[in-house]
């Protein structure tokens, strides 16, 4: 049974493996940090948040300061889709951001129906117009 943990990551409860939700690529042990199975690159934040004000004229341009912030991107080694983006001070250790109790997860899902796609939740329904 697969559990949709994020929009880009699933866990196969039978094999206890993280998988790419997009291409199914095996990423790693579900009891371990999924980031270990992804590819990573560091980016100067202005590559994403480019200056809106002329950087030749101004100190503050809407682009983050690279001495303060770098963007670290994690993608699937097979399909190249982004699974996670971290904003970190240069050199700061990446977070082990999702650490699950896999035995508890298996017990929890043993009582649930398998899903073929993630549940998004209730849609917004505008109240009826009344006046």
């Amino acid at each position, binding site marked *: 049974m697969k*559990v*949709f*943990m*994020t*929009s*880009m990551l699933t866990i196969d409860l039978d094999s206890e493996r993280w998988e790419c939700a997009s291409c199914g690529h095996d990423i790693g042990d579900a009891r371990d940090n999924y*980031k*270990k199975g992804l*590819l*990573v*690159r*560091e980016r100067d*934040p202005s590559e*994403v*948040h*480019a200056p*809106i*004000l002329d950087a030749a*004229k*101004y100190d*503050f*341009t*809407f*682009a*983050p*300061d690279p001495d*303060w*912030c770098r*963007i670290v*991107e*994690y*993608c699937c*080694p097979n*399909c*190249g*889709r*982004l*699974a*996670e*983006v971290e*904003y970190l*001070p*240069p*050199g*700061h250790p*990446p*977070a*082990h*951001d999702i*650490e*699950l*109790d896999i035995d*508890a*997860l298996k017990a929890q899902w043993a009582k*649930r129906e398998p*899903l073929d796609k993630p*549940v*998004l*939740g*209730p849609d917004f329904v505008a109240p009826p117009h009344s006046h």
Partner: protein
Amino acid sequence: MGDDMDIGGAASSAVESFLKETSLYLAPDPEIMENHGLEPRTAFEDQCIAKEKDPVRLEIVRERILAGVNESFEMLENMGAAPGAKWGDCVSAVYTASGDLSLASSGGVVIFCNLVQYPIKFVNKYWANEPTVGIKEGDVFIVNDARYGQAHNTDQSMMMPVFHEGRIVAWAGATVHEGENGAIEPGGMPSLAEQIWDEGLKMSPFKVAENYKLRRDLVTFLQNSVREPKLQYADMKVKMYVCRRIETRIHEAIAEYGVEAVVAALRMNLEDTDAEVRRRLSEWPDGTTRHSWWTDGTLRENVQIKINLELTKKGDELTFDYRGSSPEFTNRSNNSLDITVKGMLAQLFLTFIWPDIPRNQGVLAPMKFIFDNPSVLKPAFGTPNAQSMMTVFTAWSAGQVCAMKFLYSNPHKYTRVLAPWFNMINTFLFGGLTQHGEMVGNVCADINGMGGGALADRDGEHGCAPIFATMSDIGEQEFIEEEMPFIQIVSKKMMKDNQGFGRQRGGMGYQMVLAMRDSPAFGFMLTAMGAKFPNIPGLFGGYGCPTYPLARVSGVDVFDILLKDPGSFRYSIEELMNERPFKDGKYTTHPMTLGYTLAKRGELYMISQGTGGGFGDPLDRDPKDVIRDLDEDLISHDVAWRIYRVVYSRETLLIDELATEEARNAARRARIAASKPFGEFCKEWVKDKPSGKVPYYGSWADKSLVHAGSPDAVHPAGKVNPPVIMTHPLQAKIDRLEAELATCREGKG
């Protein structure tokens, strides 16, 4: 206490009584302030619940009282004189006799009333049996000192006991973000505050009305303590009558259903909420999610401040562990009280995660909180906290990210998973003399225009609502201009490329370009983080917001320019700053941390509201949505290609789907080629301490150790010695200039 110190029960009680009677100062009581959970049931509540058990009947009573609270909220919003009241930065609520928040109004700011539980409990504990105070029918108490229970000192709450046959059966409360409070800077949120005494009014809970009448001697004292004396009086009357309306509605409910039904409904509302929250938490996976984020200043200087969160869910409980966050800043106002963090997180659950849950404090009962003591999220009693938003909003967003990572897999959701909402108060504070000769000090309603986070299948809403009040307003600019001597020449116009990129993009923020006129003395200030390090991330591969500066054009009078040469004006920050259309103007950018500054007529002050975070990989965004944003002038051609890799005709905006698919595949291949395996990346990337280029506060790899400004100033968390004391920015500037001068002189010598 060891056996040798045992003085016996009676003696111990006598000592306790002696200490109680001879206390020289009644500071906030840790027993009250440390407990965010529910008070134990009283004997009377037990009796009432034994008599009134039918959940359907209790629900009818609950709805009846809620209707009264909502009616009182309408009064508060419509009659309140403070700008904050007019756009929903206020709330009214009913509390149990013990002081627990049981029913908040459907609109308004939940954190405000969540924190009023504390001053009510203080009044119950200290004033009920105090011969010089007491609690009688018709009494009203007031509070604004955050350390006794408020979000920050700019808010004022009034609390009225509701009696039935001589017994307190409930409390009514009303809170407004009043703004002005006599602090060192106008507007109630002083970034200049270096001591708690710079923060203005410090009202511990005290009785300000008897027999439903305000005491004019006390009112006059309070009026003399603030810059807006008429506002102070007007809103005290409004809040008192709002409480009185709630009291009336409770009395009517008692008359119709009986006191037992009312008391049981208020109590069971809390217990049922607690039980339902536990049930819902049980649906989450067990485990830990982690998120760290950094703010980039104290409002006086740019420094990097870590907020560290580990959120652990086990069974039906949730633990927020903020240890490893920055030390406290003992002479800066950007520290947040722990009760403020808790109150904001109640808001997270009651409005963003489970909006269908009754708005009361039962939502926090299954949750635990751990802080380093002291730290920036749990400062010492004497540490300023007037600008708590600078850290509590980041703590809130860390909670939002961590919660979403638990929530996504749930088969049963009560609302949708959401990328981070924008979280900073990108708005102007103002103060001075108006065109009507009134002295004012307050904040613009644009504080409420934060961009919404993206959802899994929908873009975020533009300029939607603040994180602390999902049902609020950004006001009518024209009304504000009738009262205030400044014009927003560009108002509510979305800022191009100010977008949280993603498969679904964040809701964007709008520009504010304003200039003062018609006042001999009027000024602005700004109190926002995020000019160097962005305020929020995205989610699941989406990006966060950019950084936000203050842009200024001085040395011009744009009102003259608009009169004589209107064609030269440009209606965006980007054009005004990059094209520099006014030849005499001085064009500068700054962090959004402007201390109160007197404005000259016609000079431009320009900022932008922030965008919500993006959701998912931007290369997966539907090309049609990219073109729609382009067509609506929300993004540039540069972003359409550089971020979203869409190929289209610039003339017709017709998408070349095949070329777009090829370009995106090529971008994914390039991404793979430019990336490394995690282990290899970490070997090169991870350093054992901060770079030293930026003053750094908080933990690095080990949350038990925190840095206090430099790579080598490391202390055990909660035991930073010497404490962090910042140099006055002007002194720092003088020191720097004197050093330069000495170097120059040495060179000459």
